[in-house]
């Protein structure tokens, strides 16, 4: 069924967010480009095996993340452990401060997060994926997704409070 998806339309619809996701994982433009391209190459070769055409987007994100892990496999392992709950009090970074950040500052902050948190947070914000979908893409239990998001957000907010933003003009 999925082979009826037009390749160019598929690329148009998803290459931007896939690239942003890849960039947050790799922190390197060229590597993010290659990872995005590789994901679509794999789709072209194996996408016809996907029976549910509504799952294309999730399939692409899952594949990209899997490829990223593959490329990092020799460097590190990701422990799938439950993390303790973070405090409900996030550091008080104001929405106005966030709006003043430029993309590089935000990427820099995201890049300082542990890889364990980075993927979950990007899926959470980039695509509004549900916890179940994030769990499916990352291949981890639902509880771990929530723990990673809570802890990752806490760390991200800490990092954002330390960024110097220019005074509003």
């Amino acid at each position: 069924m999925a082979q009826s998806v037009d390749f160019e339309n598929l690329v148009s619809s998803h290459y931007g967010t896939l690239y942003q996701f890849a960039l947050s994982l790799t922190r390197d433009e060229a590597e993010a480009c290659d990872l995005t391209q590789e994901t679509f190459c794999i789709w072209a070769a194996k996408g016809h095996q996907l029976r549910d055409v509504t799952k294309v987007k999730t399939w692409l994100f899952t594949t990209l993340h899997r490829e990223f892990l593959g490329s990092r496999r020799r460097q590190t392992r990701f422990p799938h452990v439950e993390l303790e709950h973070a405090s409900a009090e996030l550091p008080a970074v104001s929405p106005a401060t966030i709006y003043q950040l430029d993309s590089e500052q935000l990427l820099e902050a995201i890049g300082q997060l542990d890889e364990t948190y980075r993927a979950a947070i990007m899926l959470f914000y980039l695509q509004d994926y549900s916890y179940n979908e994030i769990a499916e893409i990352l291949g981890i239990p639902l509880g771990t997704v929530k723990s990673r998001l809570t802890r990752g957000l806490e760390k991200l907010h800490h990092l954002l409070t330390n960024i110097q933003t220019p005074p509003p003009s």
Partner: protein
Amino acid sequence: MNRDEARQILLLYRPGTNDADDPEVAAALALAKDDPELSRWLAEHNARQTALREKLRQIPVLAGLKEQIVSEQAAKSKAASRRGAMVSLVAVAAIVISLLALAHFYLAGGSSNGQMANTLDNYKSQMTAASQAGYSMNLVSSDSGKIQAYLAGARAPSDYALPAGMQKTAMAGCAVETWQNSKATMICFRSGKPLPHDQYGDLWLFVVDRTAVKDVTDMSSPQFAKVNGLMTAAWTQGDKLYLLSIQGDENDLKNYL
């Protein structure tokens, strides 16, 4: 559920999504309606979530990426479908290239030992012809580090300096060409314009040791010339001779210098 528990649940709440369908989240939201302190906290938290979401979605995507993915895939599909006819195609291409090279040799005036005369004009002609004659890449990659490492391994010029205008242009790969008895580097770039399915790029940079081309003088400013239908700019920097070619005119080329 008390205020702290509700706050813990709402930490991961994103306004405008289906998160509120979760019964636990719905209960926490209901509690916030009746609790002014929780309600104030939630309003600020929602604004923060919205700001983060919008900012992350504004991360710029590299120009030309979509075209690169589509054209690369189209080229692969085309190559696969033509695999059966590949042998005869290669044979025909080899004959055509040989004839072109032979014709060029006679038109450009060959040297007495049968090799093309070692002049800048002939160098430009051979390199631009190479980029037009259905070349194959030795390495297909957009990673400048990988390309440089490959060229260094192949003992081709790899310590090149890209002009400012080229530094943000997406690379597509590289090949090693031969000029006289020296190796010349060819790096293929993509301008971001749509490409024919069988074409890797539309911008080519050639780098060779300047001593490999005999009549090269100091060219600190680029010299423009039309060669084999391509607009070219040639210049020297350090011990290297650079040749940049594009399918376009002089103004198009100047954008990359």
